């Protein structure tokens, strides 16, 4: 029993306030945009120079000059703005984004994030991740709680090359919602049927409890 990627995205979306400026990483985090609670409208930023873009166009109506950082076609809507890459990363690096939500290979209890390189083999690619982790006011991660092999992705220290040091403050995993505070994982929510011991067993660093741990309840999606 664990959350689907869609459900993780739904949970992450519940923490985004109305009017927040948000950058969603390529892949799974992009899904967060679909689950904004009623009455809230975040404004989405993409590294390649669009603020306030809209949803994907219908198939066949793509304009390939109007894409997001994942090179997927998007649309404009009232209030959209275009700008060049230096201005785009001024928004990022200058601390103007409220939230960045990224994927992860590993997250450490120190807030360190590894999400760009699986090591010396293959072709490395970093994109905008290293800028985002040091720019947005809040950096959160969406990730399966464990690897495909069942190994913990939440660790005392990252083993893979770092994307950023001490940058992540919240993890939305497939099993739990965990904050990073003072160099510790602090458990905020976990799946109702999952014991703390069972969760700790698949987590690579100590889970701390401060006050109540809420049930992580998400809709069927």
């Amino acid at each position, binding site marked *: 029993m664990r959350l689907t990627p869609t459900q993780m995205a739904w949970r992450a979306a519940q923490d985004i306030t109305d009017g927040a*400026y948000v950058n969603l990483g390529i892949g799974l985090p992009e899904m967060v945009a679909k689950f904004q609670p009623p009455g809230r409208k975040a404004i989405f930023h993409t590294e390649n120079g669009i603020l306030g873009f809209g949803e994907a166009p219908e198939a066949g109506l793509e304009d390939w000059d109007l894409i997001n950082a994942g090179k997927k076609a998007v649309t404009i809507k009232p209030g959209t703005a275009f700008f060049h890459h230096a201005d785009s990363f001024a928004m990022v690096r*200058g601390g103007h984004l409220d939230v960045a939500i990224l994927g992860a290979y590993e997250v450490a209890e120190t807030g360190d994030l590894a999400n760009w390189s699986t090591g010396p083999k293959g072709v490395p690619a970093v994109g905008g991740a290293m800028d985002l982790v040091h720019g947005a006011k809040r950096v959160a991660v969406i990730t399966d709680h464990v690897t495909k092999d069942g190994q913990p992705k939440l660790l005392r220290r990252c083993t893979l090359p770092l994307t950023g040091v001490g940058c992540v403050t919240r993890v939305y995993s497939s099993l739990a919602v965990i904050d990073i505070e003072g160099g510790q994982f602090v458990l905020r929510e976990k799946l109702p049927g999952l014991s703390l011991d069972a969760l700790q067993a698949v987590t690579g660093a100590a889970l701390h409890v401060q006050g109540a741990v809420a049930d992580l309840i998400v809709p069927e999606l």
Partner: protein
Amino acid sequence: MDKTVTDPAAAVAGIADGMVVMIGGFGGSGAPIELIHALIDRFIATGHPKGLTVINNNAGNGHVGLAALIEVGMVAKLICSFPRSADPVVFTEAYLAGKIELELVPQGTLAERIRAGGAGIPAFYTPTSFGTDLARGKPVEVFEGRSYVQERWLKADYALVKAHLGDRLGNLTYRMAARNFNPLMCMAAAVTVAQVSRIVAPGEIDPEAVITPGIFVQGVVQIANPAQEETLNRAGARYPEVAK
């Protein structure tokens, strides 16, 4: 989300004693006269805010706008490149009397320091001012055989800017050379308030034509027929009006 602010008084209500305030404009072009005057009104009424550090290219002209802000005694320090004007008497007297501190910055360095503040760049190197008095005490480094001076970012608590069109998301356009420092200051302040000649609906500004995207703007207030410093000065205006 609606960043519209009802009037200039509300727009400047959050500026507190001792804050750093960037004020847009180059001379009178792009100077947010009504916002500055609203700030003076508050000071006249309440004695606050005072002890401000103001960042502007100039030091005011005549007895309106920035000059008036200095004249009523609200400005403790001015960071600028060119504190001269057709009628610089207010700043000149305050400066020579030791009532106001001056940090003189070359104009391009001033612009770049403000942009750096907005772009998360704490320091950069420039050839400008190398070997001059204005580089005194600043680190120097040689790159590719040439000497450069290290300069630091400038940030502000507030930016008061003048734009042309604005929407409720904060997207702005400017009018001709009234653009100048305004888009940079929007980036570099924790809170930016823009006075605009007209508030339009989102989408009325072409996405290609947006100069300042709304992410850099926290408040937009409409001043339909903004005063122009040059026109006020030619008419011999003073703020607050002496006759009051």
